[in-house]
């Protein structure tokens, strides 16, 4: 076998050599050279011919390759084992070796000794000369294999890629034997089928590299599946760990739910409690019992309400008695006793006596109303009022008011027997009033006075009910006092006005410039008005309404009185706005504000120019009013009234001399005193001086440089002067380069505030890319004082929320869930639910819930 193999090797070698030929340009050159040279022997020709027979592709004459010619030992010697073959071997492929021989024959002539030596050896050993030929010429090459030949230690041939066995080689020996053709066919079929070919395994490093490449891909895939979780974790503002770990029981109920009966007694109890039969029995009987016990819903509600009422009454009474018991004042107790007695008396008194008493009272009242004895109609009172002493002296005023008070009490409407009639009377009176609105002023005043007095009288503390409670009483008293005071003042005014007479009145209206006076009076009015308002809030008694009634009736009169009178007038007016305007909230405030600022009238005038026109034309008052009414029918009642008032004032006040100034004029007049521009310039100069201070003038220290006349003459040293000049120049330059140098009306401070500097960063911090975003992130405060408690938690939550003492497990894989965003938004809600998981019942409930959800 070995021999055969080698033979075939040699054959292939020969083939290869020949096929290689045309590819090499230098070999072609050599061929050309060979052609010129005469052929050495016939053998060579034969060889070529024989080769021709074998090789079917191409053939050309090729010279001996250089490495085989052995002209010089430039090439490594190659061992030829072919000569081990027996001489008589008939295969024609041996020629290639002969070719070698031919080559050798060339050399033989030059190396006669060597040839002879080989011949000798040949003779001795009986072996072909070539065997010794190689030995003698070349170095003997020994190939020792350290390891047995295997796939890891291939032979040289294999490594060189030569000597590959083909199937033909194996087939050759059995050619012609039975079954050969069959075999041949099968083999050829196999050869055609390329897929079934098994390649030789790759070397290990290569294989591992490929393996690693595959693994790398798999590992990457494995890692990639975590990406969504990692991303979610990283982007979450807060990561929660162990939120669903229960740290044990938190409530007594939770502990009790886990109770397991241990002792006999407990077990017995448990068996009874959990007995089904008992439960059924109870259900049956218990239901019947319940039926019997049924109470109607109405009854129940009634009962409940009753109980609630009683309870509240009891509570109030308790409170009251508690407080009353605490009072130590003797006077209080005395008065209380009196009261009690009185009430007792009243109760005791027989109806006859009561009637008598009432009659007496009525008589007194009638008398008073007829004589008006106490209404300052007396000689003294008249005198006092005519001389104006009541204004001057407090005592006098007090006396007069006392009289009035008496009058009021006496002429007060009585809640006695003839109640209905009196009310009718009053109604009649009012009707009359309404009709005679434009009556003589004196009458109006009288009416007003009367009403005022009435209100003063009406403010009486009720003896029973909630308002009798002391703190209420106190508040009421205070209010009443104020109201009374005001009423008194009003009364005084009425009086004065009455006294001064009608002609004076007209004169006064002419004199008083009405609402045209800005400033002081208006300012006085504002707070008072507000006070009045606050009063309104608290007392809903009829006193106010009455007052208004008065003022409604004779507003004009009030308006036209002197300045103190005007106060109240103004008050009432604003009140009227408050009450009557339909959309009070905004409008009222608007009007009041205008009023307070003093330019109210002006605005009004602007609002409806018609009114203004009228005022200029001096249309008589009544006429104008008529006109107005006809025009403003659709307009609101209050508005028309307001305008009316304005008209009234203006008609009475404005003569030809007065012209309404323009807006600009008004402003100019308002800011006449201050020169803003000058002030600003001064201020700017100051700022400049402060920020860029003027250089100090060079001064010599006393005693220095003033010793002699020469020194004095010389003056300041030149360097000082130069320095000063430089400083001056620098200052001017600084001033010029300032940002506000060219802006006349602007001061831009260039002083760096060290304290403010602390609140700024020099550079934009890392994660931020724009200034705006950074500033925005700092804008809203996060403290509990600045935010509602519901947000503070989320604003201040740290990045990682974990429980101390609970082991945190590594991340567990979850599939990407499309609904998980919902969970992210409410991590807290999850957490809240989780602790409930602990109990079995809780779990069951949760399950049930979730089921419901899925169903829904």
């Amino acid at each position, binding site marked *: 076998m070995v021999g055969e193999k080698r033979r075939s090797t040699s054959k292939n070698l020969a083939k290869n050599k020949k096929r290689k030929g045309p590819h090499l340009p230098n070999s072609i050159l050599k061929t050309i050279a060979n052609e010129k040279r005469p052929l050495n022997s016939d053998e060579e020709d034969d060889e070529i011919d024989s080769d021709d027979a074998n090789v079917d592709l191409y053939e050309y004459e090729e010279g001996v390759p250089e490495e085989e010619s052995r002209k010089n030992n430039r090439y490594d010697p190659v061992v030829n084992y072919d000569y081990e073959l027996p001489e008589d071997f008939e295969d024609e492929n041996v020629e290639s070796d002969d070719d070698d021989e031919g080559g050798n024959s060339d050399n033989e002539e030059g190396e006669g000794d060597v040839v002879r030596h080989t011949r000798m050896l040949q003779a001795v050993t009986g072996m072909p000369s070539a065997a010794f030929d190689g030995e003698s010429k070349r170095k003997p090459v020994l190939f020792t294999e350290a390891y047995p030949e295997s796939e890891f230690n291939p032979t040289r041939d294999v490594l060189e890629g030569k000597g590959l066995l083909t199937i033909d080689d194996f087939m050759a020996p059995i050619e012609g034997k039975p079954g050969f053709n069959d075999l041949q066919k099968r083999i050829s079929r196999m050869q055609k089928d390329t897929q079934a070919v098994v390649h030789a395994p790759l070397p290990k490093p290569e294989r591992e590299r490929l393996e690693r490449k595959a*693994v*790398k891909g798999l590992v990457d895939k494995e890692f990639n599946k975590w990406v969504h979780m990692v991303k979610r974790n990283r982007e979450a503002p807060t990561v929660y*760990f162990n939120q669903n770990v229960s740290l044990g029981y938190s409530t007594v109920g939770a502990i009790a739910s886990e109770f397991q009966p241990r002792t006999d007694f407990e077990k017995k109890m448990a068996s009874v409690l959990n007995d089904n039969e008992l439960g059924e029995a109870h259900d049956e009987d218990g239901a019947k019992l319940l039926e019997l016990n049924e109470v109607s819903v109405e009854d129940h509600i009634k009962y409940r309400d009753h109980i609630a009422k009683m309870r509240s009454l009891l509570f109030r009474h308790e409170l009251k008695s508690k407080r009353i018991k605490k009072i130590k004042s003797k006077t209080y107790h005395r008065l209380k006793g009196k009261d009690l007695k009185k009430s007792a008396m009243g109760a005791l008194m027989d109806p006859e006596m009561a009637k008598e008493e009432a009659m007496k009272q009525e008589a007194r009242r009638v008398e008073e109303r007829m004589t008006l004895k106490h209404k300052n109609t007396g000689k003294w009172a008249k005198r006092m009022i005519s001389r104006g002493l009541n204004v001057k002296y407090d005592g006098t005023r007090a006396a007069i008011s006392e009289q009035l008070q008496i009058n009021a009490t006496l002429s007060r409407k009585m809640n006695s027997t003839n109640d209905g009639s009196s009310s009718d009377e009053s109604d009649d009176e009012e009707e009359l009033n309404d009709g005679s609105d434009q009556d003589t002023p004196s009458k109006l005043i009288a009416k007003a006075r009367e009403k005022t007095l009435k209100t003063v009288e009406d403010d009486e503390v009720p003896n029973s009910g909630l308002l009798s409670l002391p703190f209420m009483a106190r508040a009421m008293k205070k209010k009443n006092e104020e109201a009374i005071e005001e009423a008194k003042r009003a009364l005084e005014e009425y009086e004065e006005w009455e006294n001064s007479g009608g002609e004076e009145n007209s004169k006064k209206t002419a004199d008083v410039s009405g609402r045209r006076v800005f400033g002081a009076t208006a300012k006085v009015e504002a707070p008072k008005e507000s006070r009045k308002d606050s009063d309104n809030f608290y007392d809903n008694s009829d006193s106010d309404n009455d007052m208004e009634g008065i003022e409604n009736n004779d507003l004009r009169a009030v308006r036209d009185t002197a300045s103190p009178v005007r106060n109240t007038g103004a008050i009432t007016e604003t009140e009227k706005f408050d*009450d009557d305007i339909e959309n009070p909230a905004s409008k009222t405030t608007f009007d009041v504000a205008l009023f307070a600022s003093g330019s109210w009238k002006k605005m009004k005038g602007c609002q409806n120019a018609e009114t203004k026109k009228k005022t200029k034309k001096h249309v008589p008052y009544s006429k104008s009013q008529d006109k107005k009414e006809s025009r403003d029918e659709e307009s609101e009642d209050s508005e028309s009234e307001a305008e009316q008032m304005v008209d009234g004032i203006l008609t009475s006040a404005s003569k030809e001399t007065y012209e309404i100034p323009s807006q600009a004029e008004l402003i100019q007049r308002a800011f006449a005193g201050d020169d803003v521009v000058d002030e600003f310039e001064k201020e700017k100069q100051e700022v400049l001086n402060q920020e860029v201070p003027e250089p100090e003038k060079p001064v010599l220290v006393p005693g220095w440089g003033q010793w002699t006349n020469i020194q004095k003459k010389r003056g300041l040293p030149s360097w000082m002067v130069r320095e000063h000049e430089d400083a001056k120049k620098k200052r001017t330059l600084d001033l010029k380069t300032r940002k506000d140098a060219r802006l006349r009306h602007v001061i831009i401070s260039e002083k760096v505030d060290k304290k403010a500097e602390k609140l700024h960063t020099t550079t934009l911090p890392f994660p931020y890319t724009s200034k705006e975003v950074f500033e925005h992130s700092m804008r809203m405060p996060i*403290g509990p004082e600045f935010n509602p408690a519901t947000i503070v938690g989320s604003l201040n939550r740290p990045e990682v929320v974990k429980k101390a*003492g609970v082991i*945190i497990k*590594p991340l567990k894989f979850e599939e990407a869930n499309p609904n998980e965003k919902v969970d992210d938004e409410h991590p807290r809600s999850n957490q809240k639910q989780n602790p409930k998981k602990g109990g079995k019942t809780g779990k069951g409930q949760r399950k049930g819930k979730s089921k419901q959800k899925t169903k829904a």
Partner: protein
Amino acid sequence: MKIKTLSRSVDEYTRERSQDLQRVFHNFDPSLRPMEKAVEYKRALTAAKLEKIFARPFVGAMDGHRDGVSCMAKNPNYLKGIFSASMDGDIRLWDISSRRTVCQFPGHQGAVRGLTVSTDGNVLVSCGTDCTVRLWKVPRPTLEDSSVSSENFIEPAAEYVWKNAFWAVDHQFEGDLFATAGAQLEIWNHNRASPVQSFQWGTDSVISVRFNPGEPDILATSASDRSITIYDLRMSSAARRIIMMTKTNSIAWNPMEPMNLTAANEDGSCYSFDGRKMDEAKCVHKDHVSAVMDIDFSPTGREFVTGSYDRSVRIFPYNGGHSREIYHTKRMQRVFCVKYSCDATYVLSGSDDTNLRLWKAKASEQLGVILPREQKKHEYNEAVKNRYKHLPEVKRIVRHRHLPKPIYKALGIIRTVNDSKRRKEDRRRAHSAPGTIVTKPLRQRRIIKEVE
């Protein structure tokens, strides 16, 4: 007529119980509070100062070993238990709360280099330079353990002798495999006396190994040929390998981000890698002035602790270039091992001075039970400090740390060297044709190549 009145319901300001806090009503109108920003800044400043005042990170030292502590292992199932081993072959179980030895595991003849605990906390695996792997049964923690002062000794449950000395061991998360690093990487089963798998890529010995907690079949090793390698056990093959300029002493996987790992390098920096793209580090964590010996991730995955040969322990944010905290004491020597406690509240360090030290992970954190109001206050302080941390004064106070003199000086030297290098390179670039001198970014500079 519309009347506006002040009205208060009694219910709104009545307390249910006398212990309840009085409700306070605020008007949140910003126009009423023009100074809110200034107020909050001031609070931030105060919070920063308070943090400094309350910063007392050192909880206690655990003394008992007779030689330098070489490695530690935390019990993943029991918070209080920590195992430590020293260079003389001594292994101890400590009770952190009482800071005393619970029991000892004698048996190793040489230095113990690796220690790890199975995820259920029942089996302790140790290996060392005596070429043995020993498995121990961890005693169940009982109430008596902490009170009894007498130390009990435990016999190894199994002892496997192997061909070479070991450098490290790590247990798979929730599995029964563990990997040892020595002449090559070997995968063991609890019940087999010889490794079930072994990997070798190159001839250099493996010095550290760490399993991925998220992906239990993936592990990373570092070898003395300055390489970091990722293996996949399912394919029983390596996946990636990079060669760096210096050796990597230890590796830690991020437990919350299974693709990311951080390597503690000999050059004093830590490098965070993405396991899918190793040719450049995701982040370079610089601050140590000497080799980083060990690294461990916080279970929250937000920060990690490193122990260094420069006698300091530092805590880094997982995505920050510089440490947020440095811990050192006068007596602490070279730190060989560090661990983050399983609840992310404490940090443990084992050093050459035979002591284990327990630190708080947040230096100024208040320990013990915290009332909800207190908690809210702490949170607010933290939030406000975080908001104004960029302002110079707050930044200065928050960042200030006292450093031991050698570290301070070394930092100065490193800075100088780096500056001069940069200067030189700038000049070189300025004086050569544009584009001829290309500088690699810092994240790639220390990585030589990725091996296929």
